[in-house]
């Protein structure tokens, strides 16, 4: 028995032709987050702390679709979600519909540790964030030019996209097939 850690930055239709400028920063971010988590485990930090620490770092990276760089709703807004669970106690916490909380995962942990509930959403979750004094930012903080472009492409193709779906330039909506997954 020994420590172990695994992390992800999203799945989807990632093209094999992904250019180096798209690939290198994401690989670097994954490596950085992995090293952060390994160092924390080696320092005997509890696994719950480790997963929160790593996910915060992933949220702060615009390379991925959570936190800064969050994908956009059809209205051009952000609605972020997060969930955390302690395997030892099965305690868990979750949040949905956040638009100003910088690190949704930490708010999910506060739901777990400081409320009798396991899930807060939208206005209630935002109010709880303010009550707890977690870091917040204007919703523009989370919106990147890349994601504005992705929303534009998705709207043109009349579809929703999971992580890293390549835009179909000039596609006719009826030819796309399963529009749910692009």
């Amino acid at each position, binding site marked *: *028995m*020994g*420590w*172990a*850690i*695994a*992390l*992800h930055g*999203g*799945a989807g*239709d*990632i093209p*094999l032709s*992904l250019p180096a400028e798209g690939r290198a920063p994401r*690989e670097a971010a*994954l490596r950085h987050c*992995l090293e952060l*988590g390994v160092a924390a*485990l080696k320092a005997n930090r509890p*696994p*719950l702390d*480790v*997963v*929160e620490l*790593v*996910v915060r770092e*992933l949220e702060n990276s615009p390379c*991925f*679709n*959570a*936190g800064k760089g*969050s*994908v*956009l709703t059809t209205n051009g807004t952000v*609605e972020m*979600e*997060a*969930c*955390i*669970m*302690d*395997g*030892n106690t*099965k305690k868990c916490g*979750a949040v949905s*519909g956040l638009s100003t909380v910088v690190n*949704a*995962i930490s708010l999910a942990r506060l739901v777990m540790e400081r409320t009798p509930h*396991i*899930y807060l959403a939208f206005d209630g979750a935002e109010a709880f964030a303010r009550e707890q004094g977690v870091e917040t930012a204007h919703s523009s903080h*989370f919106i990147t030019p890349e*994601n504005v472009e*992705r*929303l534009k492409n*998705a709207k043109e193709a009349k579809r*929703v*996209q*999971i992580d*890293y779906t390549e835009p179909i330039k000039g596609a006719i909506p009826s030819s796309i097939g399963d529009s749910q*997954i692009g």
Partner: protein
Amino acid sequence: TVGCVAVDGHGILASATSTGGLVNKMAGRIGDTPIIGAGTYANSYCAVSATGKGESIIQATVARDVAALMEYKGLSLKEAAAYVIERTPKGNVGLVAVSANGEVTMPFNTTGMFRACATEDGYSEIGIW
């Protein structure tokens, strides 16, 4: 979506997932990660964080099913995770998971998944496809 799972040298497990959801999703849509047992789950057997199309992950209760297969059927982490991924519609899901004894697995049925892992015995991996 981003996520992380970890286990320490005592077999204590934890899981965390965070997401912005789907591009062009309807306002008010609830995705996979906040539903305990769908995109995120941890118990004394394993910790799981999933990514992909939330609706499919909820319908398949992906994360909890991995744990249940280990608990009820005695499957290894790799077997349980592979079983669940195989039975979720292709192109919809990926996951990372660790077990209480330090196993790691990162299967997916999408084209790729940005992922990384490390174990105490010195193994580490960073991958996309």
